[in-house]
Structure formats: C-alpha cells, structure tokens
C-alpha cells in the first residue's frame, strides 16, 4: 500500500498494513529514511504504531520529491539496529491482581509473563519519552481502564491493549499499573533526552 492521506494541510500520513510488529518495522524504516533525507519544507517526522506522519512547516507545500519519498517503497530495515536496555522493575503495581483476574491467571504469572518477554520500542508518543513497547505476551492483553487515573507516578510500568509502556513523568493515565522503575526515561539536559528510541529493545528485570 503506497497511499497517504492529508491530516489537515500540514500532515501527510502514510499507513502500513499487516501484523503490528511487521507494519511497525516498516513504519520505523520509512520514518528513519524520511528524516534522514532532510526536506526543507518538513517540520517533523513522527512514527506511529503503523504509520508515519510527515508534518510540513506552516504554509509550506510538499515538493514533488517529498511526495515521491513518502510514496516510495520503504527500506527493508530501520536505520536503528536496536540497542538492548535492561530496566529494573519492582513489580508491586496496583493493577497486578486485577489483570490476573481479567485474564484468569495468577498474579505471579502476570509478573513472570511480563518480565520474560523482550520488547521493541514501536514509537515514542503521548508525553516526552513515553515508549510504546510491542512484544507483550497475548495473555496480558487487557483494555485500558474505563476511567483514567488523575495521577500516575513517573516510573510506572504499565500495560494497555497490545502495548507495555513506562510513564516518564507524573501525568493522568489510563493504563494498568504493573510496577515501578527508577530509570529516568526523559531528561532534557541529557543527550539524547529520551533514553529509548524507536527500534530499541527492552527487557524488564525484577528488582
């Protein structure tokens, strides 16, 4: 599928079909190559779960070269080969028991399943440095809370749908909480500011 659609007059959004992990790998590859190409009319390139959004500068028109690059067959692999991060987690989150009940497994199994998988950073979104991790075991797929918490503490390790994530800062949030890490995911004074980049791999280690 080579189609893209407008999102307003500034967004060109291309989507990729297929299973999430494959579509995301292609979206990341497309995002990396569009970012590397440096088009003067482009303000930002933002990968999503299975999309890449090219955001134009205000008032700018997309050049033919940009449109061709967006429509082109993306490279087979993303530029980022994927660093492996081990993140220590204290698995005493408030929702472990509720997740176990929803999936009819033991709380211990929830933790064991979450800590035994290897995840890939699909994209960073929502808040500065918030990683959307794919690779969550199917037995842990649960819906978001029907009503979000007013405050989720920074460092909270959580799951929702097909994703696991880590809250980099205190924020309202609707994901289900498994535990906590004291790893700092985002620090604007650091280079790079975001610890995790799309394509990086993550393993959670019981603390």
């Amino acid at each position: 599928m080579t189609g893209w659609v407008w999102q307003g007059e500034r967004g060109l959004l291309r989507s990729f079909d297929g299973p999430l992990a494959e579509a995301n790998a292609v979206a990341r590859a497309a995002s990396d190559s569009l970012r590397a190409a440096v088009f003067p009319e482009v303000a930002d390139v933002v990968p999503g779960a299975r999309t890449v959004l090219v955001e134009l500068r205000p008032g700018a028109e997309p050049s033919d070269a940009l449109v061709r690059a967006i429509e082109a067959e993306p490279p087979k692999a993303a530029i980022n080969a994927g660093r492996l991060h081990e993140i220590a987690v204290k698995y005493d989150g408030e929702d472990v028991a509720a997740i176990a009940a929803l999936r009819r497994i033991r709380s211990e199994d929830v933790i064991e399943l979450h800590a035994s998988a290897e995840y890939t950073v699909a994209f960073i979104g929502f808040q500065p440095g918030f990683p959307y991790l794919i690779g969550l075991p199917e037995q842990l797929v649960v819906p978001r809370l029907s009503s979000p918490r007013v405050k989720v503490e920074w460092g909270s390790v959580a799951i929702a749908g097909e994703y696991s994530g880590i809250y980099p800062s205190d924020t309202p949030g609707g994901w289900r909480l498994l535990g906590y890490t004291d790893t700092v995911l985002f620090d604007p004074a650091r280079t790079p500011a975001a610890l995790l980049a799309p394509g990086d791999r993550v393993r959670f280690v019981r603390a």
Partner: protein
Amino acid sequence: MTLLVMHAGPLSTVQDLGRIGFGSIGVAPSGAMDPWALRTANALVGNDDGAAAIEFTMSGPTIAFEDDAVVALSGSRFDAAILRSVSGSAFERDVDAAPAPHQMSFRLRAGETIRIGPTLSGARGYLAVRGGVEVDEIFGSRSTQVAAGLGGRVLKQGDRLATGAGVDAPTRRARTTSAYKSEQRLRAIPGPQREIFVAGSIERLFSSPYKVTTNADRTGIRLEGAAMELTTIPDIDPEGVVVGALQVPADGQPILLCNDRPTTGGYAKVATVIGADMHLAAHVKPGDTVRFEVSTPDAARAAWRDLEDSWRAAIEDVE
C-alpha cells in the same frame, strides 16, 4: 532587567513560537496559542517575532517592573491598568491607576506595576517586554509545556523573571481586528479516519453549532454538540497527530487538539482545523459557540499566506 510577579493569574506562562521537530520523542510544540498576537506584541516593542513573552488566560497577572521597560499588550483585550504608587505607599487605595493601552507599545518606569485583570473579550492575551523574557531554552525554545512540566515557566506569585536589555523602542501600534468572536467560524479539512464515522455523521460536524465546554486548555478544547456516530470503537492504532486535529472519543463529541497536545493519539479524527484558524480557536471561552466549515489543503495554505502578509502591515510607528 527583572520582572516581579505580584499575582500570577489562573494560568500565565512564558511562550514563544514553540519547539518544532521533536514529535518523535514525544515533545509537543507548545508555543503561543495565538502566534500572531505574540508576533504582534513582539513587533510593537521592537523584538524579534519569536521572542518569549507572557501568555495569560481568562485573567492576567500583576507584574511589577524593577527597571524602566517598554511593553505591549496584544491578543484578547483584558481589563489592564498601570499602577504608580503614591509616595511609596503599599496600600492599593493610594495608587494612581491609568488604563494600559492595548495593541500599542508603552513605557513603564522603574517601580511601576501593570495589573491585568479579567478578560473583556476572549480567553488569551499577551504581554511582551522589550528584550524578551529570558528563561532557559529547552530544545531551542522558551515555551512552557504545561502538562509535561517541560521548559518555560508557569508564573507563580513571587517569581522573578529576567528580560533582555533595551528601552530604545519606538512607540508603535497595531491596527488589527480582534480575533475573538463568541460565535467563531473555524475552517477544517475532513479526515483522515472518515471510515470510522457513520455516513452523514461528518456532515453533522459541518452543519451544527458546537459549544465550548469548561474542559478547555492548552492541550485541547472539548466541544459539545451534535454527536458523531461511529461505525466501530473509536480506538485506532496510535498515530502522529497535528495541532488542530478534531479527535472523537466514544461519546461522539469532538476534542480540538491544541499546542500542548500529546504527540500521538489513539482516537479517530473526523477533521483538522486549518493552521490559519487555530489562532481564532485560541480565544474561545467556555460557553462560546464554534461552527466548522469545510476547507481544503490548498485553501488552507492560501489562508496562511494571507495572514503572513497582513499581520506585519498592520503595525505602524506612532509620532
């Protein structure tokens, strides 16, 4: 030069034209909700268009100037006064108040205070100071991302803000019409998730009035009106969203995403308000009405160019 915040107002923040190009690490652009008003205020005091200034919401701050300064107010008109204390008295009844000009630069002497009260028109106003407000730059911008606590400054009582130097500015005024209307018309481009909406539902967005709810801030403005019907649940695989996107959760009521929005969103989007009209949305208040009109990418770009051409022409020196 230093400004002293005597009273902060409900939400007064330092903003410039925002940080662009950090969406892939989850950093929103932030920046002035009405970038044209910010540019105008800066031009009036002789700053670069993108210098940092103070954006205030619904009611403004009271700020004492410890040094001589040239300042300007722009955006929505607020009840604003210049206070000169009488023989050093600390009592409010002993101060001599004069109305502060709007859309025109003026001088303040050391020891004078500007008191910005409630709005007399729309939601947001701007105070620029010659030299610009100097807080640390994060990713090339002094803008405040309120929700993530990133960059800039949310003004608090007792804060001291540094500004750049300079009092050598000509007196200027801006001949611009107010961006605020209690019934605001916003042009929007339909899509991209048309298939999630029941046929006829998108037309409803463009034919019915929507009321601005009290749930309106720099992240987004929740609207209330004819609900759009969804063919399925509104959850989509999260994707990058642009400022101006109208996302629709399960209740069918649109949320207009603004400068501090999350960089990705997992709800279907029915349309996107064009860039040239977002500064109009910046001034709507709870209880106001917005109506949407269909636009196209070409028309939206032309509208932006018109704004670019017209804003500077509106600024003139005053003898």
